[in-house]
C-alpha cells in the first residue's frame, strides 16, 4: 500500500509540474506581481479552478478511502496535464520564456513536492496531514505557483539587489560616461529618441530601449548594452509612485536632466498633480546636487507654474524661454521653426508632425548645443528624424489618401494634439477613426467627451468604434454643430475601414487614434 501511495504522489507531483507551466507563464506575463496574476486568475481561470478543486477533493477522498485506485487516477491526470501543457504552449502567442527565474521557480516547486512526498511516506505521525497537503498542492496548481513565488521572493530580491549593485559598479568604473536623465508625464520617450539621434552626430550614444524606464530596466540596459565606447547614456525614467525617480537616480546619477512635462498621469497612485511634480523633480534635485544643468519644458503649464524658472534652462514656445521656438509653421509635411538660444538663431525643419514635437526638439537641441554638437549637425539630425512607429506617423493609405497613424497614443493631451495636427491639413477632407481612450479612471468620461468635441470641431467625418464604449465620444461630438449624417458609430474596426474605403480618395486624410488592433492597416 505504501508503494502505491508513493507512486501516486510522484505521479501527481510530476503532473503538477506540467500544469505549472501555464501558471508560471501567466505569472511571468504579469511581471510576477501576485495582484496582477490574481486578476488574470479571476478573469480566465474561475471555471477551471473550480474543476480542479473538485478534482482535488475527489482525489483526496480517493486517497483516504481507496489508496490503490489513487495511483491509477494520478496516472490519468498526468497524461491529461502533459497533453494540455503542450497544447496550451503551442497555442499561446507569447509562450513561457524559460528564463533563469522560471528555472528557479521550477526548482522550488520540485523541492517543495519532494519534501512533502518524503514527509508523507516516512513513518511519522500525522502522515495523513502531509498526504492531504501533497494532494492539495498538486491539484491546486495556481496556489502552488503563488507559494513558489512567495518562497522564492527573498532569493529573487537578493538577485535583483546583486544586479543593481553590479550596474552601479559598471557605472562607477565609467567616470567619463555622461548620464542624461529624461522624465516627464508625457513626451519623455519622444525626447529620448530625438536627443539620442541629435547627440549621435558627435557621440556614441546608448539610450534605454523601448519602455525600459524602471530601475530594473535601467539596470538591464547598463549590464547588457553599455559598450566600452559608449560616451553618453540617455536614461528614460518612469514613475508611478513618489520616490521612483529618486530610486533610478541613485543607480544612474545623471549629470544632466530634461523634464518634458508634468500632467495628470497615474493619478490612481499619485493622487495629486503636486505629487507628480515632486516626483518628476526628484531628477532635478539629483542633477543640481551633482552640479549639472536641468532643462524643463516651459510650455507645460502644470510644470512651469510650480518652478523657480531661474534655476533651470527653460525651453518652449513661450517668449521668456531660454531656448525658444519662433516663427513656427506646421502642416502636412512637418514643421519648420527658428530655434533661438544665446543669440544663435538656427532654422530647423522636421518631418515630425505636431507643435509639441517642435518643443521636444527645442529641448533636445538646447541640450545638444551645451554638449558641443555643431549647429549644422543639429540641423541635419533634426531634418532626418523619423516618427516613432504608430505615433503621429504619416503614411499613404487606401485609394491614395493619407493616414496619420497615432494608434499607440494613450494620453488625452496627445490625442487632442493629434486632432489639431489633422485640423492643420488644409484642403483635405478630414476623417477620424477612433474607439476613444480607456483606463483613465474617473477622468475617462471627461477626456473622451473632450476628444469628441475636438473631433466635432475639426473633422468632416467621424467614425467611432465600439457601440457602448464610444458613448462619451458621441456625446462630445453631438455637443458641437457636427452634422449627424457624417457621424458613424460601428461595432468593429473592419466595419470602420469598410466605411472609410467607400469615401477615401486623394483628397482625404484619416487619423487613426488610439488602441486599434495590430493588423488594422489593411
Amino acid at each position, binding site marked *: 500500500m505504501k508503494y502505491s501511495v508513493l507512486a501516486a504522489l510522484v505521479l501527481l507531483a510530476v503532473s503538477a509540474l506540467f500544469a505549472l507551466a501555464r501558471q508560471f507563464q501567466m505569472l511571468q506575463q504579469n511581471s510576477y506581481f501576485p495582484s496582477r496574476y490574481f486578476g488574470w486568475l479571476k478573469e480566465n481561470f474561475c471555471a477551471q479552478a473550480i474543476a480542479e478543486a473538485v478534482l482535488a477533493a475527489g482525489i483526496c477522498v480517493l486517497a483516504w478511502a481507496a489508496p490503490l485506485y489513487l495511483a491509477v487516477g494520478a496516472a490519468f491526470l498526468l497524461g491529461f496535464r502533459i497533453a494540455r501543457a503542450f497544447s496550451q504552449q503551442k497555442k499561446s502567442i507569447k509562450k513561457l520564456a524559460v528564463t533563469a527565474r522560471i528555472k528557479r521557480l521550477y526548482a522550488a516547486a520540485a523541492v517543495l513536492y519532494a519534501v512533502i512526498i518524503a514527509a508523507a511516506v516516512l513513518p511519522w505521525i500525522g502522515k495523513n496531514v502531509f498526504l492531504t497537503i501533497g494532494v492539495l498542492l498538486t491539484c491546486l496548481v495556481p496556489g502552488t505557483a503563488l507559494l513558489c513565488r512567495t518562497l522564492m521572493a527573498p532569493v529573487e530580491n537578493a538577485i535583483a539587489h546583486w544586479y543593481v549593485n553590479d550596474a552601479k559598479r559598471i557605472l562607477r568604473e*565609467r567616470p567619463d560616461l555622461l548620464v542624461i536623465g529624461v522624465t516627464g508625464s508625457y513626451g519623455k520617450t519622444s525626447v529620448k529618441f530625438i536627443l539620442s539621434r541629435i547627440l549621435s552626430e558627435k557621440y556614441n550614444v546608448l539610450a534605454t530601449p523601448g519602455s525600459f524606464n524602471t530601475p530594473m530596466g535601467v539596470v538591464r540596459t547598463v549590464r547588457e548594452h553599455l559598450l*566600452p565606447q559608449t560616451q553618453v547614456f540617455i536614461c528614460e525614467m518612469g514613475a508611478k509612485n513618489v520616490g521612483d525617480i529618486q530610486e533610478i537616480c541613485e543607480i544612474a546619477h545623471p549629470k544632466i536632466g530634461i523634464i518634458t512635462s508634468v500632467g495628470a498621469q497615474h493619478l490612481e497612485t499619485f493622487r495629486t498633480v503636486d505629487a507628480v511634480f515632486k516626483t518628476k523633480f526628484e531628477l532635478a534635485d539629483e542633477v543640481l546636487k551633482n552640479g549639472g544643468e536641468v532643462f524643463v519644458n516651459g510650455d507645460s503649464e502644470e510644470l512651469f507654474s510650480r518652478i523657480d524658472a531661474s534655476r533651470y534652462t527653460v525651453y518652449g514656445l513661450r517668449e521668456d524661454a531660454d531656448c525658444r521656438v519662433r516663427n513656427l509653421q506646421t502642416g502636412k509635411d512637418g514643421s519648420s521653426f527658428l530655434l533661438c538660444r544665446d543669440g544663435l538663431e538656427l532654422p530647423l525643419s522636421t518631418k515630425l508632425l505636431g507643435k509639441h514635437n517642435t518643443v521636444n526638439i527645442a529641448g533636445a537641441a538646447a541640450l545638444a548645443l551645451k554638449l558641443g554638437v555643431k549647429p549644422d549637425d543639429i540641423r541635419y*539630425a533634426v531634418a532626418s528624424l523619423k516618427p516613432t512607429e504608430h505615433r503621429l506617423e504619416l503614411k499613404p493609405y*487606401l485609394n491614395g489618401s493619407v493616414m496619420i497613424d497615432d494608434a499607440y497614443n494613450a494620453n488625452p493631451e496627445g490625442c487632442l494634439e493629434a486632432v489639431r495636427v489633422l485640423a492643420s491639413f488644409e484642403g483635405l477632407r478630414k476623417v477620424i477613426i477612433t474607439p476613444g481612450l480607456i483606463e483613465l479612471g474617473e477622468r475617462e468620461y471627461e477626456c473622451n467627451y473632450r476628444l469628441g468635441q475636438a473631433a466635432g470641431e475639426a473633422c468632416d467625418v467621424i467614425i467611432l468604434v465600439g457601440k457602448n464604449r464610444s458613448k462619451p465620444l458621441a456625446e462630445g461630438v453631438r455637443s458641437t454643430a457636427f452634422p449627424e449624417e457624417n457621424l458613424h458609430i460601428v461595432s468593429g474596426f*473592419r466595419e470602420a*475601414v*469598410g466605411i472609410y*474605403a467607400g469615401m477615401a480618395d486623394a483628397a482625404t486624410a484619416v487619423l487613426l487614434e488610439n488602441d486599434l488592433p495590430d493588423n488594422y492597416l*489593411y
Partner: protein
Amino acid sequence: MKTNLAVFFGCRSVEHEVSIISAVQAMRAINREKYEVIPVYVTKSGEMVTGEELLKIENYRDLPALLKAARPVTVVRENGGVYMKEQSGGVFSRKKAVRLDLAFPVVHGTNCEDGTMAGYFEFLGLPYIGCDILSAAVGMDKAVFKDVLKSAGLPVLDCVTFRAREYLTDRKGITAKITEKIGFPLIIKPINLGSSVGISKVETAAELDSAITLAASFAEDILAEHAVSALREINCSVLGDADDCTASVCEEPFMHDKILSYADKYTSGSKGGSKGMASLSRQIPADLPEEKAEEIRRLSCEIFKAIGANGVVRIDYLLDTETGKVYANEINTIPGSLAFYLWEATGLKYTDMIDRLAELAFKRERARENLTFTIDTNILSGVSFGTKGAKGSKI
C-alpha cells in the same frame, strides 16, 4: 571597461610580411588604457589565430613555432554581437568567447585591402577602421581609380589597360596601341597590386615584352602609362572621412632603382627590413615650394573625398620637374605603417592617430544606424482579413 580592439593582419596576400610589420607597430602604439588589443593573425593559408605571442615581431622568425603556440579562432555573430571564439580543445573544453567591439584591419594587398576585409566586417556587422568596400576596391584597382579621378577632374596620367590573355593572342595589336597612345618611356603595372610588385619601367620597345610578362604573373589585368622622365615621387597622407579630412605633410621617398621596387620599400632598412615603410630612406617634409606642397595637400583631400575614403590613406604622386605638373599615381587605402611617420611629422602622435581612427569608425557606424531602419514585424506573417473594399494582401 576597455574597447576590445581586434587587429587583423597577415592574410593571403603577397604583402603578408609587410602587414605583420605594420600591425606589430600599430599594436605597440595603441593606448592600452582605453583599448584591449586582440591580435588576429590571418595565416598565409587564411586561417585565423590569436595569442599574446603575436605581439612581438621576433616571434615571427620561427613561424611554425609561433603557429603552434597561437590558438585558432573563428569570428561569429551571436546574440546581436560579434564574438571571437577559440576553436580549441576536446569535447569537454569550454570554448572561450571574446566580444569584439571594433576591428582594425592592418592588411595590405589583394584578398584583404581591396575591400574583401571590409566586406567581411560588414557581413558580420562589426564596426571597423578604414575604407568601406567600394572605396577600398576603387583604391586597389589602378585603372578604376584613374577613371574615378578623371571624372572628378583630378589630374592623372593617361593609360592603356588590357588583359594578359588578350596580349597573348594579340601581341602586335596591343603593342601598337601602347606605342601609339603612350609612347616611350613608359611604365607597365599589374592592376590591383600595391607595393610596387611587378612594376617595371620600359625605355624601349624591346623591353616591353618582358615587362608585360612580369606584370602578367601577378595580375590578369595590366596597365601601361607614360613614364615621367624628370620625375620626383611625392607622397601625402589623408586622415578623416568625407565630412572632415586633413592632409599630412608631404614626403619624398628616394629611389635606388629607376622606380621604387618592392625590395626598396620593405627590405632596405636595417635589421632585415623589419621597420617597414617607416624606415625607408626619404625626406620629410619633402623639399617643395610651399605652394606646391599646399596644392598636393589640397588635391589629396579632394581625391580622398572623390573615392569616398575613410580612416587613413596615403596618396602617391608623380611630380614632373620639367613642367611642374603633379599626377596622382595611386592610393593606398591601408598604407604601409599606416603612414604614421607622416602624421608624427605633422604633429599627431601615433597613439592619438589610432584613437582618431577608432572614433571615425564609430562615427560611420552611428551614421549607418541612423539611416537604416529595420521592420521588426515579419511582413510574411501578416496575412489579411479581407475587408470589403479594402486592399487585401491575401497569401
